[in-house]
């Protein structure tokens, strides 16, 4: 039977031990080939350091010399139950765009908190981003327990603080696990130094995280990526983001709800009569003379929201603050249209979730805004909680992605 796969992002404040934790996780489960360990041992020797587990993911010279993670890395890791992609995210505030790049690809998260330092600014900011991204499968680890003598009191105090913050931003963690990545406590094996802890190890906790495939049963949403003219056929291609299609389906082509019918579903080298959610496929349509990228197919009993006014929550990632009514581009799935942020209803500090200002006129780097975006042409979207693939977008300024956001209404 095919093993399930799962993508987890590791987040947390700078120097709380994310990269070391990942390195230890892979080392303890024999997931790193010996020849790669030898290279790392040699590099550490030349730098005058003991074996640094963090060097398993921190592969750029500058990362190792400065002792920081600059960019997100993806590394593969296997348990008996599943195949995992572990996504390491940088902890520094200046690398938030790289953290979000990594986290946006995850299905679950591990937040690493230094038990000795406690909950810090980036701990909360990263947690806030996890909430914004809608991640439902989350674990918290309290690292460096060796530095606090494996104190149950310290564990409980930090656990309480971070759990309350999670609750305040509407997310939950299944487990809060006391660990030491450097020593190896409670990572792959239960530690004798925490007899007061009766929860799972990190490996057991990760294996318990659930996959969410709810979107497979939702209404059809098939955004058009391109149109090819091949051997006399006009083939409309794209990826089905929700629902399924089969030969002869009677659909709407949006915008405008034009009535079309699927003539053929095409896959190179195979006969095909249906396609499922997630498939990049191609169709020929009856009833559509002029189909373009950015348009969308849906069933006739349910259509996407067609609007020029989007209520959303955005995370501003760019050093230059944005002003209300400044020209940007709105990109959602295969759509791209000029837009502006017409209203910033709330400007929020992402490291505390505190409201900074209502009816703001600017939004700064790492701030979150509850906004109204106005687009020059109608776009096709969904509420993020209903169909996430059509409910998340980016904003671009001069062809640079400057914000990520979700549709809230």
């Amino acid at each position: 039977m095919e093993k399930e796969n799962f993508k987890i992002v590791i987040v947390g404040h700078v120097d709380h031990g994310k990269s070391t934790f990942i390195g230890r996780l892979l080392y303890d489960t024999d997931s790193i080939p010996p020849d790669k360990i030898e290279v790392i041992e040699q590099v550490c020797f030349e730098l005058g350091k003991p074996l640094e587990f963090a060097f398993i993911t921190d592969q750029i010279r500058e990362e190792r010399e400065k002792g920081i993670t600059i960019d997100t890395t993806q590394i593969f890791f296997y348990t008996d139950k599943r195949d995992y992609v572990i996504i390491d995210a940088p902890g520094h505030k200046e690398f938030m765009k790289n953290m979000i790049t990594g986290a946006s690809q995850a299905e679950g998260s591990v937040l690493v908190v230094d038990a000795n330092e406690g909950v810090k600014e980036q701990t909360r900011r990263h947690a806030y981003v996890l909430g914004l991204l809608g991640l439902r499968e989350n674990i918290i680890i309290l690292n460096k327990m060796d530095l606090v003598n494996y104190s149950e009191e310290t564990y409980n105090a930090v656990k309480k603080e971070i759990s309350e913050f999670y609750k305040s931003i509407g997310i939950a963690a299944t487990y809060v696990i006391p660990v030491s990545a450097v020593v190896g406590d409670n990572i792959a094996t239960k530690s004798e130094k925490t007899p007061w802890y009766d929860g799972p190890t990190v490996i057991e906790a990760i294996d318990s995280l659930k996959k969410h495939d709810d979107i497979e049963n939702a209404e059809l949403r098939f955004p058009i990526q391109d149109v090819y003219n091949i051997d006399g056929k006009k083939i409309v291609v794209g990826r089905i983001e929700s629902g399924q299609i089969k030969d002869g389906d009677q659909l709407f082509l949006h915008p405008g709800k034009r009535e079309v019918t699927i003539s053929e579903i095409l896959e190179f080298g195979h006969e095909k009569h249906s396609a499922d959610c997630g498939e990049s496929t191609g169709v020929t349509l009856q009833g559509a003379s002029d189909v373009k990228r950015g348009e969308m197919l849906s069933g006739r009993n349910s259509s996407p929201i067609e609007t020029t006014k989007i209520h959303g929550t955005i995370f501003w990632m760019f050093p230059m603050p944005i002003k209300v009514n400044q020209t940007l581009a709105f990109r959602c799935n295969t759509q791209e249209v000029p837009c502006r942020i017409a209203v910033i209803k709330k400007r929020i500090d992402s490291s505390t979730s505190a409201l900074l200002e209502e009816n703001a006129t600017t939004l700064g780097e790492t701030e979150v805004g509850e906004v109204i975006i106005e687009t020059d042409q109608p776009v096709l979207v969904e509420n993020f909680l209903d169909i996430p693939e059509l409910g998340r977008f980016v904003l671009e300024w001069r062809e640079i992605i400057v914000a990520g956001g979700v549709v809230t209404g």
Partner: protein
Amino acid sequence: MDYLSELESKSIYVVREAYSRFKDIGLLWSMGKDSTALLWICRKAFYGKIPFPVIHIDTGYKFKEMYEFRDRLAKEWDLDMRVAKNTVAIEAGMGPHVGSKIDCCNSLKTQALKDYLAELNLKAILLAIRRDEHGIRAKERYFSPRDEDFKWNYEDQPPELWDQYKSSSEGSDHVRVHPMLHMTELDIWRYIQRENIPTNLLYFARDGKRYRSLGCECCCAPGDSNATTIEEVIAELETTNISERSYRAQDKEDAYTMQKLRSLGYM
């Protein structure tokens, strides 16, 4: 959808996105298993009619079997096949036994690519690199810009959220597109098996040895193996604790050879 189909769907999406955004693109094909799998994915994405050139960067030091493989498939699949070579450097004596591996790779691969891209004026190129091949490649983006000096600015890469990629080559010399980043070595072999993709015989054991990774003949070494079929290769990879590129000479030259090479424009 099964896992291999998920991986394939993502790769097809990235390939189609690159073509839609840039139009003037090319595919780098080294006749290795990964770039042949990517070539296969491009054939699927465009229903057998790949609308852009397929480019082989020829150092002149490739295995004979790779040239034969290239010519056969280029004909069978009716590819717009192009071969790029840094003839000036080769005639001047550059090769793997002159100077360092970095110098040779830079001259015969990177410079050859640079010259050819300028000639074709391509805005983006498709490459089959994967995250699990090397720690530096694990840092890559799906759409990764290169500046006019071909340099990779790994300290300030563009964000990528939710299949929204760098959409323009403005301000860059070109964009590298990596549709196979998310596939592992094992995924590639399982995909080859499922799709029945033609594969160079060098990957299968002869006299107790086979190649895990193919590059220039002088800089690749085979490893111990008795795997003579795809099924046996997969079974071997499921239990091995030796990394794929452990037999590549340039990776052994220095811990940061790959970073240096890639920052100068290597693949």
